[in-house]
């Protein structure tokens, strides 16, 4: 990576040139630099709305980039050590779906752990590929899914040698990494492509002493949420290609579903963030690591909570841990993660990333300050004192290995009916059920519904998790195959 090249930000610079020319707009968007929508201009600021412009020759076109966007993509690829990079404006959801659609078509098998984001299942509904789940063990103490063990992966690969691809979280939402290098080598030996969901892993490309990034491990495609740890605007993302992918084919796949009116606010934010990361990422993430480690130690000092870190690493199901993450097991004080999440927001004005049955996750980033960390720790201590309950009454989160009866696509489009959730045991689910966040499905289309799963859903609901994905917004009815 040439630092001198990385100092430029072609989209940002083109927008600056464009702004100075004061071009009269007779094109979309119709707000015409905000003049047609003064309240919006007042809210977002004149400068912001004046840069909300349409694709045009001096600004290039994301669907078919030839000038500044192409250059920005080249610089991004170089910064991330990829053969090619795509700037994405439909979220990392679109990056994940484009990865899958690029390597799988109807009837193809894809090997993946079950703790994937819902966008993966939705991609399977779209393309008709068949999921082959590889078991991810659950840590019995904290109730979260771990990484994929190499031997278990080898067993599944050998059982399904016709699989087209392997899909791996790097890291998981909670910061857990599998042995990506070995898994990638094993997959390539069998002619399978490797896809990495790096929605929570932008920083792996720039920080020091962090788990290996997808591109460094040799994966073929990686979906990177720049808007999470990378600092770009919400909904912007990056899709990276390794050397063995046909980038122009991937572009065609992306264009199947991507907007033809890409937002320059999102594109310029990707461009500027990439420059920032390339020039200053190393120091920034060193600071993030220091803050997260400090918070971890302080929270563990309080007692009752368990803020886990590198101590989880066992060389296999937890091959590595991303220490920028601050995940805390809360059931030691007798509260579920979702309860602590709600109390933090309602009583302490602290918004964290999510709470699940057993854990909370606080997102630490380049925008944090140590005094805010003190607030979080102070609030957790205060909650421990004010709300502590007997922890025996809590459900111990456990991972439920699903029985896949139909492919997600078959199940989603099958003839189906709605039944009360209590009566759904034994039926095949025809839709997706998940808690959001984190957005990891509890049920996916095509899976057998069991009593255990129903109990889990009702428990999560009672504890205040936001359940989503079902046709019935109140999740009292489930769609099942007739």
């Amino acid at each position, binding site marked *: 990576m040439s630092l001198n090249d990385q100092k430029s930000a072609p989209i940002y610079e083109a927008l600056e040139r464009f702004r100075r020319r004061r071009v009269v707009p007779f094109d979309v968007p119709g707000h015409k630099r905000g003049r047609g929508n003064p309240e919006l201009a007042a809210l977002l600021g004149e400068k912001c709305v004046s840069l909300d412009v349409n694709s045009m020759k001096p600004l290039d076109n994301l669907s078919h980039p030839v000038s500044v966007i192409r250059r920005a993509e080249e610089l991004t690829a170089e910064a991330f050590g990829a053969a090619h990079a795509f700037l994405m404006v439909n979220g990392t959801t679109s990056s994940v779906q484009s990865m899958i659609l690029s390597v799988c078509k109807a009837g193809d098998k894809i090997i993946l752990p079950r703790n994937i984001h819902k966008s993966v299942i939705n991609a399977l509904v779209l393309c008709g590929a068949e999921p082959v789940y590889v078991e991810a063990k659950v840590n019995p103490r904290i109730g979260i899914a771990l990484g994929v063990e190499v031997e278990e992966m080898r067993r599944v690969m050998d059982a399904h040698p016709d699989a087209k691809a392997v899909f791996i979280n790097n890291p998981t939402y909670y910061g857990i990494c599998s042995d990506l290098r070995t898994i990638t080598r094993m997959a390539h030996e069998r002619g399978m492509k490797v896809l990495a969901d790096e929605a929570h892993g932008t920083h792996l490309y720039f920080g020091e002493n962090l788990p290996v990034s997808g591109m460094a491990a040799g994966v073929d495609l990686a979906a990177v949420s720049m808007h999470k740890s990378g600092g770009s605007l919400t909904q912007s993302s990056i899709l990276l290609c390794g050397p063995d992918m046909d980038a122009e084919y991937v572009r065609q796949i992306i264009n199947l579903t991507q907007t033809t009116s890409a937002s320059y606010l999102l594109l310029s934010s990707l461009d500027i963030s990439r420059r920032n990361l390339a020039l200053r990422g190393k120091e920034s993430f060193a600071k993030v690591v220091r803050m997260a480690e400090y918070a971890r130690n302080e929270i563990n*000092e309080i007692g009752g909570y368990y803020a886990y870190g590198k101590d989880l690493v066992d060389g296999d199901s937890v091959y590595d841990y991303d220490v920028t993450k601050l995940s805390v097991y809360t059931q030691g004080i007798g509260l579920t993660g979702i309860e602590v999440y709600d109390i933090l927001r309602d009583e302490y*004005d602290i918004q964290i990333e999510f709470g699940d049955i057993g854990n909370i996750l606080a997102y630490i980033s380049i925008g944090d300050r140590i*005094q805010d960390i003190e*607030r979080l*720790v*102070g609030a957790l201590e*205060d909650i421990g004192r004010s709300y502590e309950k007997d922890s025996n009454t809590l459900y111990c989160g456990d991972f439920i290995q699903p029985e896949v009866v139909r492919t997600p696509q078959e199940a989603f489009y099958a003839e189906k009916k709605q039944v009360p959730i209590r009566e759904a045991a034994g039926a095949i689910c025809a839709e997706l059920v998940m808690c959001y966040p984190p957005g990891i499905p509890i049920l996916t289309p095509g899976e057998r519904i069991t009593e255990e799963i129903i109990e889990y859903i009702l428990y999560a609901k009672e504890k205040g998790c936001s359940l989503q994905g079902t046709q019935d917004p109140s999740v009292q009815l489930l769609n099942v195959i007739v």
Partner: protein
Amino acid sequence: MDIWFSQMDTDNVKTSVRVDKQLFSGQSEYQRIDVFQSQEFGKMIVLDGEIIFSEADEFIYNEMVVHVPMAVHPHVKKVLIIGGGDGGVARTCIEYPEIEAIDVVEPDEMFIQVSREYFPETAQGFDDPRVKITNADGLRFLRNRRNEYDLIINDSTDPFGHTEGLFTKEFYGSCYRALKEDGIMVYQHGSPFYDEDEIAFRSMHRKVYRSFPISRVYQASIPTCPAGYWMFGFASKKYHPLADFDPQRWNQRGIRTWYYTTNLHMGAFMLPKYVEDLLEEEEDKI
């Protein structure tokens, strides 16, 4: 020469002071610190554009946060001052011989250095052997402290800057724990007049009212504060600021003051109707 320093009280109102010269300007890890020499207010220290302290009116503030609780609590031995980098509150505390220890917790070392250099008279409070300065975050300092102090004075003024954490439920909860069973916490309650300040004012009362059995608000008139009107909070586990107030005991001490009197003590808790209404509305929300 015509130089004016303006403090933005709101986006639409400012307080301006003619400045003779600027004596210091620096950026610490936490904030921008400026010291000005002015005709009307003497030397002023300005943090992130807000006047924190001026020679002309600092006495009002220091007397009100120290003498009010000291005239209520019968036996204060250990005091914690959060913030207080200028030393003014500590200096007022050392006038009480029964106080055995005064902890000052101020994260910003530069603020203390600047105060010592430009306001040596005020900062002499730091030189008393009972005073111990710790450079730490207030919330951090309070963590895991239990049943230790008779009086906590939160000397931080700004609920939006780097001291934001000192106006939160977690802070008030930490203070509650760090106080003895009959302890008192006195804190900056801001100004209720302008709309933006009113929101912070309401939220502070709501939080403290829920954290302490007794929570009252009292007032003072301070020229360099927004609208010239400033409020303090009196939160207590046992003593009521008026029912347990002992004017005779306090007057026997013979402490010399310029603002506080035992008559004013009672008057300070008699609030304008609109302020009473704000407070009651928040109390009713619970």
